């Protein structure tokens, strides 16, 4: 299926140089081809679709760009169903490289930003892959350290987060939205697969340190930021902190932690897509408040379930202090999310409004069972 999707995608992209629309259609078609009836993946697919559609807001002539989210999605979906090392590495790279191009297509971009981004990503990829290989070669400790460092660089976990605020605020909002959403799944998936529940004390300490620093840096940094895109950057840093903290649990509660982490990632992605689209095309105030509440973690919205399951798994692993830090951070984030929601007043374009609307709908997941159990089944 994935092969077929790739073929469709290649064909469509090649032809889209002439007919822009064809690129969109090919992208959508290939995305639909890899559709799996697994709630978790369905939502990921939905996010990819929204990414793809919202690219239209950038208003570039070429249809080629529409292939990029589709490609990333294919890699992401594939990663969920594979476990051998080379495939994982390929997926990782395929899910990450298209973002370079996405950063480059942004309007009125200073090339510096793109260079910054690419520099970091390349370093991250190298460290990540190196770590992966070392772990497979049974150098567990250094391997996991390198893997975590690569992960931190890749997704933007403090103190290796330096690129995030710059890129998010200088790149086009839509590109940023893709970087903040679709690109995050594969690295965490691999990290969970490889490291989950098997870390020794030292790397666990390192991991927890990363998580705590990231949460605090993200939330504190967001407090005084004034641009919406910078706020979103810091919010991403904080969210990555929440997600990575789920890695610290003991093997017994790992499935719950995995579910929590991925629901949190979904919530984060949906929020980011919604907000970045809103920056580009405006959004209704009430809708943006709902997105904000989801990000803050107000029950029974999606963002709450993520934090809830993470906190549950942490408490179950006797990491009470980490759970407390997590909820305290979710409180600290309140002011800037509310400020963020206030930036928006009403939608300016129909497309943007539709995207934001879908994001709000997903955020309004008040019944977590399907996603939760699908996370568990994916984990097994």
């Amino acid at each position, binding site marked *: 299926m994935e092969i077929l999707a790739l073929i469709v995608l290649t064909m469509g992209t090649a032809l889209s140089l002439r007919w822009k629309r064809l690129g969109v259609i090919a992208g959508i078609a290939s995305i639909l081809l890899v559709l799996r009836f697994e709630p978790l993946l369905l939502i990921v697919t939905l996010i990819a679709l929204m990414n793809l559609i919202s690219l239209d807001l950038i208003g570039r002539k070429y249809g080629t760009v529409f292939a990029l989210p589709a490609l990333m999605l294919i890699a992401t979906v594939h990663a969920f169903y594979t476990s051998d090392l080379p495939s994982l590495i390929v997926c990782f790279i395929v899910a990450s490289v298209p973002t370079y191009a996405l950063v480059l297509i942004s309007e009125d971009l200073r090339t510096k930003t793109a260079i910054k981004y690419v*520099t970091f990503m390349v370093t991250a990829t190298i460290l990540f892959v190196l770590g992966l290989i070392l772990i497979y070669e049974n150098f567990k400790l250094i391997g996991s350290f*390198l893997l975590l460092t690569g992960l931190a660089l890749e997704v933007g976990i403090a103190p290796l987060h330096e690129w995030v605020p710059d890129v998010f605020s200088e790149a086009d909002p839509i590109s940023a939205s893709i970087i903040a959403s679709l690109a995050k799944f594969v690295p965490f998936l691999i990290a969970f697969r490889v490291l989950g529940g098997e870390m020794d004390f030292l790397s666990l300490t390192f991991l927890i340190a990363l998580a705590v620093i990231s949460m605090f840096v993200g939330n504190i940094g967001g407090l005084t930021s004034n641009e919406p895109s910078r706020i979103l950057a810091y919010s991403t840093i904080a969210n990555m902190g929440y997600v990575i903290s789920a890695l610290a649990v003991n093997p017994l509660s790992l499935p719950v932690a995995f579910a929590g982490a991925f629901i949190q990632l979904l919530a984060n992605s949906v929020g980011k897509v919604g907000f970045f689209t809103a920056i580009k095309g405006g959004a209704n105030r009430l809708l943006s408040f709902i997105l904000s509440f989801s990000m803050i973690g107000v029950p029974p919205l999606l963002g709450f379930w993520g934090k809830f399951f993470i906190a549950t798994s942490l408490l179950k692993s006797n990491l009470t202090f980490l759970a407390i830090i997590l909820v305290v951070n979710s409180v600290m984030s309140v002011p800037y999310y509310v400020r963020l929601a206030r930036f928006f007043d009403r939608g300016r374009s129909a497309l943007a409004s539709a995207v934001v609307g879908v994001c709000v709908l997903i955020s309004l997941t008040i019944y977590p069972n399907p996603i939760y159990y699908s996370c568990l089944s994916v984990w097994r």
Partner: protein
Amino acid sequence: MIWLILFLSPVIFSLPTVIAWTYRRNLSISSVVGLLISLAVTIYLYRMPEGFYTIPWLPSLGIEFRFVLDYLSKNMGVLTALIAFLIGIYSLEYMREDYRIGWYWFFFNLFTASMLLVVYSDNLLGLLIGWEGLGLASWALIGHWFRDDDELSYVGVLGRKVGPLKMFWSPSFAGWRAISTIRIGDMPMFLGIALIFALAGNLNVSQIDWNAVFTKIGLIGTTFLMISILMGPFTKSAQLPFSEWLMTAMTGPTTVSALLHSATMVAAGAYLFMRLSWYIQPWNYHELEPVYVFVLFLGLFSSLYGAIVALGCRERKVLLASSTLSSLGIMFAVTSLSYWVGKIAIVIAFIYLIVHAFAKATLFLVAGHLIHATHNRFCCGNLELTKRMKLAFLATVLSTLCLSGIPPFTAYWVKSGMDAILHEVSHHLGQTPMIIFVLIALTYSAFLAKFLSLNFLKGERAKLHLHGERLMPTSYTIMVLTLLPLAYVLYLKFFREGLETSSILVGILVTLTYVVGIVKPTHESKIGQALGDRLYLMALNDLIVPKVGWFFALLSYYFDRAVDLFTHSSIPEMFEELSKAVRRIQSGVLTRYVRIVIGIVFAIILIAGWFEWRF
């Protein structure tokens, strides 16, 4: 059912006035009809056999509205309803031009209903409802003229100051003073009631096993319990040092003062003490001795204080108010004698309450009429006034004679009874109570004579504004005339005590002071001034307690500000600074980022590698 009519009819019949008084002012009559119905019911109850009647209220806790018909409640009920009804008639005329008739009638009738509830209730919680109703209604009525714009409604000389004390009080302030003082007594009383419920599991005064209660908590506990319950009566009946509110309560309409000072409110305190003593039967319990001695002396001192303050007062109503205080002190003192002499003390005190109620209501109503006629709160009026207001004069003469204890008028017989039991008690307590009592009696008759003299005989000339009032004189005449049959009844009851030499001696002395009071009503002196300023007891209410309260409020305020600053200023600022620090990393320069990242990555690799290969 009969009980519901008794309590609800005044309140319900006042509602038309409340709703429609702005455009139909003659609706006040319906309120008086409500009072009349209550009066009829109380008379009906008077003829019923003694016993208990219950209405379910909180059956799951064993609390019910339980009403008692006995000697005390039967008489007290009729007394309350009768006086309220007569004052109601008087008010029809007195309050005709008022700007808040609805308010007046509602609370006047609520007042009566609450008092009746207190009178008949056997259950302490039910009684407390009436009790709180009394407090609320008195607050409402004392502050009735809330606008504070009429000099006639103030107490004290406007603008006068003594040191830091303002010596004049407006109605709204007086209302607050009343309810705040009463509140201080009500809550300990509430605690006492809860304690009784905890100990006895029952709140019916007549059913409580007092013996079990007292033995369970011992001497100290009993004292605590009794004092906390009696805090209610003390504040309500304005015993020392809670007397001030009663004086400034004169800001209310005179009808209110009349009601307040005769059969309701202040009498409720004394009445409750009588009722409790009636059923506790203190003569059976040694634990109660400290309490009863305390009440005896508190009553006597309050009474003495009231009497000498009345000597110095120049305002008609304040003079009468302090005389009420004096009488209430006597009631408390005599009731407390029941510890030594038994039930007879309660009966005597209760009879004195009835006599006092009629006489004092008459005097207040007369005072109200005088204020109405002279537009002056202070004592004034001479023979010319007497000629124009004969009925008022006669009523005053009769009621002062009856109240001060001049033989053979009403109070003389009661006071003879008191003399007799005080004599009996002197074996236990010495002669002090007796001496204080005689002093009080002498002073009492002196200031009543002063009141008579300054208003009708020897006062300054007053300008009269008579409007041909009918209802007002009628009602106080009826009231004062009830004292005469009462005198006969009491003569029959106490003639033996009344013919004792000592009683006659006291009677003669009282008559003498009465005559002196009439002949020479005024005497300017420093002491008189201090007495007129009520010995500056208001410093407690207006200066010391508020100062202490404000001091603590200020402390709380500083605490509040500190917390506010810390949480809403310091903490957010700290986070802001932190946030700026975090954002300072974002310089936008790639080389600097790379340096940071490479530094961190190398450090991590070194640490990891060292740990990996060390072992």
